[in-house]
Structures are given as C-alpha cells and as structure tokens.
C-alpha cells in the first residue's frame, strides 16, 4: 500500500529531471517541498535523493526554485537522519547564502532551517559570526515575522557573548547583508 506513495514521489522526481518547462519544474518542486512536511514521506524522499535535489536547487538562478527548495529543506530538516545528511553534504553553507536572498520566504525558511540544524557539533557553523550579525539586523526588520524569528534565533541559539561580539563587529562595518524586499 505504501508502494503507491513511493511511486508517486518517484514520478515527481522523474518529471522534475525530464521536463524542460520551468513552470513544470517549479510546480513539481513545490509538490516535493510540501511532501517534505510530512514525516511519513521522509524515508522515500531520502531514497529518491530529494535532499540532494533541494540542496542543488539552492544555487539556481530562479528565485522561485530557491524559495521552494529552501522551504522543502525547512520542512524536513528536523528529522535526525535528514539533519545528519544535510550537515554531511555541507548544506549549511548554501543555506547561509540564502539569508541574503531578496525573497522573504526564502530568508524565513533559511533562518528556521539553521535553527533546526543546530547541534552541539554544528553550532559553530550555524551560528557563525556573520550569521549572528545577520540575525541582529533581521531582528530590527519591519517585518514582524522575520524579526520574531531572528529574535528567537539570537535568544535561544546564540550565547550572549556571540551576540555581543556580533554587535561590536557590526558597529565597525557598514556593509551587511541587505534585508529582503517586502
């Protein structure tokens, strides 16, 4: 009975790889990302290497593809096996890069994903100084959703010392990652 589920997901992955239509690509990717919300699908998504597919899409040109892929990662990254997989595939780096996207959803997903990926081992990466600095700026954003999220990040995942350090640093450098539009 669960075979149907796997086959269906397989069909999606196949279409994603075969199609030339960017529209179809977006739709299928959104489909997969939404399936990634349900833990029931994790096993199959790993089997079909959808995690790699999501990670690959993070460096695409198309903002929409990046948004959907980032959403997919955000949806499945809490699972232990998925988390380990993403960390081992050096997924943190492209996710951090998504923090500078101009698409708010992409940024939101990236922030949440970084929180969920934080482990005692990975925290050096996920809460690196530039990230903390970025969160400081986000916490001042006019978008309440983003500022809430960044505040949780700073309060729960960073030490006061890290925050202090980032604060001092941002005083001295004018450049920073721009806030997302809207």
């Amino acid at each position, binding site marked *: 009975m669960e075979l149907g589920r796997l086959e269906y997901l397989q069909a999606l992955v196949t279409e994603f790889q075969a199609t030339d239509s960017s529209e179809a690509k977006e*739709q299928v990717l959104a489909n997969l990302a939404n399936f990634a919300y349900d833990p029931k699908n994790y096993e199959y998504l790993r089997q079909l290497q959808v995690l790699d597919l999501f990670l690959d899409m993070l460096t695409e040109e198309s903002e929409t593809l990046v948004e959907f892929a980032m959403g997919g990662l955000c949806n499945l990254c809490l699972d232990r096996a998925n988390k380990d997989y993403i960390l081992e595939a050096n997924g943190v780096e492209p996710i951090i890069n998504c923090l500078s996207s101009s698409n708010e959803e992409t940024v939101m997903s990236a922030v949440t994903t970084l929180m969920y990926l934080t482990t005692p081992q990975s925290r050096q990466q996920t809460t690196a100084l530039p990230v903390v600095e970025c969160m400081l700026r986000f916490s001042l954003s006019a978008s*309440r959703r983003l500022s809430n999220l960044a505040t949780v990040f700073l309060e729960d995942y960073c030490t006061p010392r890290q925050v202090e350090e980032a604060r001092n640093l941002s005083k001295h450098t004018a450049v920073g990652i721009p806030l997302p539009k809207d």
Partner: protein
Amino acid sequence: MAAGSSSSSGSGGPGDACRHHAQLGVCESRAKYREGRRPRAVKVYTINLESRYLLIQGVPALGVMKELVEQFALYGAIEEYHALDEYPAEQFTEVYLIKFQKLQCARVAKKKMDERSFFGSLLHVCYAPEFETVQETREKLQDRRKYIAKATNQRDCFVLKKAEGPKKTISKNSEGGCPWSTSGSHATSNWGPSCFTTSHGVSHNTGHPSGNRHQSLFTLPQDDNGCAETSGYFGQNTSLTGSVHPGGCTPPTPLMQQRTVPIDNGVERFMPRTTHLQERKRKREEGNKFSLIGTSADNTEVIIGPQLPEIPKVDMDDDSLNTSATLIRSKLKEVADSVSRTSVEKPESSSAKPLVKQRRRI
C-alpha cells in the same frame, strides 16, 4: 506561472497588508497526475507560514461577527478574536482576526473555511503569523520540533537552554493536545455555540496591540483537547493537502486507508453533537429573551431573571466524562447567572455592544 499578484510593498507589521495574504492566482498548467480536487496556486507551506492566527477577509459588513466566530469555533477553541478596522478591505467587507488555541485547529479551520460562502460573500482565510509574539513564534517552532521527534521516534539532541526557561506560561498547551496527535480523542462538546452565547459575560481584556475593538475572550476552561473529532482525520492528512498538492498527493490506496481508519468514531460523534449544540443554543436564546423581558418588566430577578432553560442532563456513559460534563454545566450556569445579573443591574450594558455593531450596517 501563477505569479503572486502582489499588491502593496507594505512591511510585515501587524495591521499592514502582507504580501503573503494576497491570493495567488490558480495554477492552470498542472500535469494531469498532479491535479488536485480543488484548483490551487503554487505555494510551499512551511511552519513559518502557519499560525494559530487566522485572518479572515471578505466578511460582509452586516454585523455578522457573532455568526462568523460561531462558524470558526466549530473547529476548535478560540482564544481571541476581533475586527481589524484599519486593515485594507474591499468595499462593504470587513476583516477579522481569529486566534485559535491550537495550531491544528487553525489549520483545519482554514482548510474548511477558505473560499466558503458566508452571507453571500466568499471568505478568504489565511494564516497571519505576523500577529504572533516572539514567544508564540518560539512555541510554534518548538511544537514542530516535538512533533517531528515524536513522529520519527527520536529524541532531539539539541536541548535549548532558554527555550525552556522563559516558558513559564505556556504550560500544557504545547504538550498534550491536538496539534499533532492523531488520536481521535474523546469528543469534547464543552465548547461551541452554546458556550458562546454566554461568553459575553466573561469578557476579559488581554491587551492586544494596535487597539482594535477588542471582544471577549472566547475560551473555555478544561478544554485541553479543543479540536476534538476533526483532528483525528486531518492530523494525518494535513501535509498532504498543502496548496500545491493535487488530490493525488497521496496515491489512491493510502488515501482510502486513511479515510477509513480514523473517521469511524469521528463522524459518528460529529453529527449528533452539532445538532445537539444547535438545539441548546436555540433554547438558550429563547431563555435569554425571556430573562430580558423579565428584567424590563420587573426588577426582581428572582422570579423570571435567571431562569435559563435547564440544560438536558446527558449521561455520557463514563464517570470521568460525566464529572467533566457536570463541571462544565456548573461553570456555564455560573457564567449565565452573572450575565443575567449584570443585565439586571444595568440593562443598557448588554445592549451596548450590539448597538455599536448596528451602526456598521449599511
């Protein structure tokens, strides 16, 4: 593709129109096998987009807030609700904000009520996470963490220091309860329209930002399991019904499976409950009318005043259920009594609110 017909460049503060609230165009170009039961736009849902807060647009300006809230209360306990007067609305419509106690209930309510016709107008229901406080956002993320840990049988290795610390108030809310559990649980008929009618008396200001017209706190005690019957079914299905999902999101066989399993005790209880509640509500309203007439005719409340109809005593076939039912009944009575008492003391107070509402009628 179905691009967002984005309006305003407004920021995301509460009260501003948010881009993610603009309804996306329906996707017309989906492959057959990905087609759903309902036409949908292309969108990915994450925990960031979901919220216990629902924004309801397109409510006709007919003074139908009570009816609206009653409709939504069918899907779970509502913690607060009010009109958003400053929120940009179409002509002759109003925008409301409803906060559910549980995310799962908001999910079901959104699914059920979005694009539903309501007094001749189509409602547009969307999550409104921008109304969350930092603490609410934190709890939402933590609940998702707990759910995944439970669903995948893992213990989360990263323990948050602060997340547990300042949590003093969240209590059981995030623990047991419907949000993610898939058990059908016992039917909780303690909330609903019948309670709603009396809840005016217990109005309770929780100081919401932005000074909107704040209405009473619509929440019921001892309802730790707000979503009742519906959660059993939807808990399993939610992620499969995200916007992009075609009906085929689940392959046919599992779908059948899911249908048959949890529904049996759910639906059975659902029907009698609503009819039961409606009956109660009707009776209560009659009773209220009586008490009002009574007070205006005669100031002695003893005779006609608090004579609300007796709520039929139902044996629930279970001692603990009966105990809670009795508790709820006595609470209801207490509240109802206080309502009629205040209406005796100053009869205008109870009619003040409806009056304000009437002015909104066009």
